[in-house]
């Protein structure tokens, strides 16, 4: 009877471990925010033959603004990646 119970326990345990399968649930890849998906604008060029220093300055200012807008997007992407990574890793494996 002792022998029989040992065999039974072994069979139960073997069945428990024989059919281990991965959990078929995968989180959906997160969408990026719409503004992050917009491409950075090209920098403006100075146009015209006789250009005053004032006009040139305005183009330069516009380009600085465009640069900072684009850098905001890059910061946004870094934020997005770090936050989504943190969230994804919070799922217990």
């Amino acid at each position, binding site marked *: 009877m002792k022998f029989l119970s040992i065999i039974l326990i072994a069979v139960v345990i073997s069945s428990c471990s024989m059919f281990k399968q991965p959990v078929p649930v995968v989180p959906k890849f*997160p969408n990026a925010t719409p503004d992050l998906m917009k491409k950075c604008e090209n920098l403006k*060029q100075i146009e015209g033959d006789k250009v005053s220093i004032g006009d040139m300055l305005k183009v330069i200012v516009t380009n600085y603004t465009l640069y900072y807008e684009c850098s905001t997007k890059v910061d946004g992407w870094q934020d997005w990646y770090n936050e989504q990574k943190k969230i994804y890793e919070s799922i217990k494996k």
Partner: protein
Amino acid sequence: MWIFTILSEFIVHCIFLGGILLTLFGFVLSFIPFIGKYRIPLQILGLLTLVFGAFLEGGLADNKEWELKVKEVEAQVAKVETQSAEKNIEIQEKIVTKTKVLKEKGDEVIKYIDREVVKKEEVIKYIENCPVPQDIIDAHNAAATLNNAVKDKK
């Protein structure tokens, strides 16, 4: 475990219980004349059924645990997806606000140039006497279109 798609939980329990009963009849109650006659086949059948039943019980327990785990992970994934969407909204708001401020500040500087800088006597004189040389404009434009050079390389 595929077998549980065709065998219900109840049948698994029945097989296991049947195995126990058959083994009992085969080993313990063999002194009863009717059972004693079929002792050996009963013992073999009982043991086989019991072992198969025990195997299925183990599988069933494992399957239940697995289903529980699936539900747990599904709940976690749903929670994580909500968190992710919330974070996206937060990031989007941050970008929109920053971009808006940048645009406003840029416009302010341009307005300041039109309103103040260009009207200063010193600047007016400079503008009248010194138009920006074409070479400087070309150099600026070349720098502003550096990305085109990268595009051409692709």
